[in-house]
């Protein structure tokens, strides 16, 4: 019982004399004290029982606080200063870094690049992964081989991916242009240096590299759909496409939500592919937000401004993630 409830007028006591009333009220006042003491003991006991659990998470929480929470709040703090690494007294700027960022044409361009890359990559990754997963869901001779084959690029380091991509897309000596020009007779395409092509090229390269993971997740998700549903649909005359649309898609939505959100978070932070393959060029056509952030901090030594970029990027990702959650949760079938 809470303190507020204990102070409510006792309807029985109203009919008693003053003495009785006094006794009644004093008894009522004593009751919560006893309850509070009991609650405290109970809470302490519960805490004591749970203490080992807290001790178990303490090492991780300590590391989490030191290496993640503290840097986050430090980053927020640094974004309010003209931060120089060797100074002890930093120059306070308030929100000036954020104001400058809002007027920074490069920031808006790299943000557009990043969104365009993310949208292309997520759509291609999800679509391709789902189609391949649907094909590889059932066991057949060689299905394991194909699963490994499609997953294999994902184990490459991004540096290796970059070197392969340069070899593939290079306009004069690359493999793609060899077939395009020498075999098919098309005009030579400057894949990595054309501002309109570079983001799709990077997205295709990334999809080849990363679609194995969502494919595996989709395979697991497809296995969780009861076969009886397909059998019933078949009896009712549903075709393959109809079953895919009316059974697979709705029931795969929780998996889809997971894949889309994780892919969104991963690809909004694209860095190494443009950094290695194009250096962010031509111009700023393939520069990503994280690359710009990195360059601002570690090449220009503008730590305050770089921190402001990271905070804005974080806010954007939070908002988009919430929107994705709310949009997709509505359609999710659990």
């Amino acid at each position: 019982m809470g303190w507020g409830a204990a102070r409510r007028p006792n309807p029985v006591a109203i009919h008693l004399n003053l003495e009785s009333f006094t006794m009644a009220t004093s008894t009522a006042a004593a009751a919560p004290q006893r309850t509070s003491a009991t609650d405290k003991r109970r809470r302490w006991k519960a805490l004591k029982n749970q203490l080992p659990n807290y001790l178990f998470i303490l090492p991780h929480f300590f590391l989490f606080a030191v290496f993640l929470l503290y840097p986050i709040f430090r980053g927020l703090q640094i974004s309010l200063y003209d931060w120089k690494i060797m100074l002890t007294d930093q120059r306070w700027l308030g929100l000036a870094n954020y104001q400058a960022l809002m007027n920074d044409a490069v920031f808006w361009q790299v943000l557009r690049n990043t969104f365009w890359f993310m949208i292309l990559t997520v759509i291609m990754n999800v679509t391709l992964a789902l189609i391949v997963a649907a094909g590889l869901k059932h066991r057949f001779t060689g299905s394991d081989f194909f699963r490994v084959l499609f997953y294999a690029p994902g184990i490459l380091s991004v540096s290796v991916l970059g070197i392969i991509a340069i070899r593939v897309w290079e306009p004069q000596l690359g493999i793609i242009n060899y077939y395009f020009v020498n075999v098919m007779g098309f005009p030579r395409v400057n894949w990595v240096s054309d501002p309109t092509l570079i983001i799709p090229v990077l997205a295709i390269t990334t999809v080849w590299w990363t679609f194995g993971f969502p494919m595996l997740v989709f395979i697991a998700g497809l296995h969780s759909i009861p076969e009886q549903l397909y059998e019933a649909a078949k009896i009712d005359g549903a075709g393959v496409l109809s079953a895919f649309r009316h059974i697979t898609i709705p029931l795969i939505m929780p998996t889809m939500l997971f894949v889309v959100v994780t892919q969104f978070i991963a690809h909004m932070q694209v860095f190494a592919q443009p950094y290695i393959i194009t250096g962010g060029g031509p111009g700023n056509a393939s520069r990503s937000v994280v690359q710009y952030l990195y360059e601002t901090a570690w090449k220009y030594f503008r730590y305050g401004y770089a921190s402001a970029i990271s905070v804005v990027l974080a806010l954007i990702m939070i908002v988009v993630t919430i929107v994705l959650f709310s949009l997709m949760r509505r359609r999710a079938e659990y």
Partner: protein
Amino acid sequence: MRRLSLGLTLLMVVAMLLSACGGAAPAAEAPAAEAPAAEAPAANAPTPEPTPVVNAFGQCDDPMRLWHGLTGSDGAVFAEMLQQFAEANPDACFESQGIPWDLFFQKYPTAVAAGTPPDLVIFHAAEVQQMASEGLMQPMDDWYDTTGIGKDQFNDVLINAISVEGQTMAVPFDNHGWMAWVNTKVIQDAGLDPTTLPKDGTEFIAWAQQVTTDVNGKHPNEEGFDKDNVAVWATWWTWPRFTVPSVLWQFGGGVVNEDVTQATLDSPESIAAIQYIKDLMCKYYVMNPYQTGTPYGGEPYQNNQIAIWWEGTWTGGYMRDRPDVAAVTEPMFLNSYAPDGKQAVKFDSHIFSVPTGVDEKGRQEAYALIKYLVENGAYWANSGQVPALKSVQALPEVQAKKSVAVAADQFNKFGRTDTSSPRFIEIQTAWETAIGNALATCDADVTKALQDGNQAVQAILDRP
């Protein structure tokens, strides 16, 4: 409600962790063998080398620590020089750590700020103004005083570039930069004399059209020339960081004015220079189309597909490893594209610096190593780089290396260093972006791209 707010809080923390800390973003790895801090990664360049290479010499509790970015082919020559120093100084105790440039410029400032700097670092002259303005370097005038090696024994343009407010912040180890690697076989096959090269931009176009051929043997000025199937190029688009400043200066233009207060990227001279390059690519078809990043012509050059290859002095190492290619190669001064034949070439330097916070012991040990390496720069010439001391440049064993002798001569005659500014790297990124926009496609507007780039550079200069 509590669940919702808890969920949102967790979501925020996760998103901030992911973006603010760059959780999933793989670390950048340094690309080419010879590249300053802000180098764009290399297309066709040597494989990035992510792991620091540590060499330890002598045994003691507190070795002198040297950090550098010489992780390419020149790194092997450098390691040999350190070994020679250790043999000549048995009491010396030091360790050398080769770190790819991008990682170097993360470790260096953080180590200095943390109070644990290495005793000696090597980076580039072009970055001195920026590092000095961040308070990461100690003045080194006393090195010149105590060793008796005067500043006048180095390239004076270079000494100016590494001087800040009257103090000399570093000691040059070498001069390195752009030069022309001329494939005599390709030129002879075109029926031309490889010893007589075009003297200016106008002559070059006519000459280049004679050299360039498609797979059918047709030249660009002939009917039916197939620009999509070129077999031999007169020249090759190379690393803009050296190519573009060199051409801008040849035309009398530049990125900024002399006192680094005004952007000049949209001056008529600068526009003419970039338009000339674009015409080589898109009008005359004698240079391969623009490539982003750090285009490298090593493969087509060794396949006799390039006549004049503008590349770095460090290509001496490439030639050393390919004697058959070296046999048909003649290193020369960078040819001029300017209508009046004005010569200009960009060069830089690996410099030694003692970081802020190094104590007297570390400083003296560093000074001894610097003196040895500078005085024995003749061995460094094996990497293709030009030793910094003029007296060493004149040694017979250095002069015997033709590419080194030619490069030294051109740097001393008309070499120029890059923009001296505390915001050097930011300015560099801005103009490289503009050049990319100007050259990326044949229908891109050069003037507009350079005007935009000029605004960007000016904004950096004007920022308080």
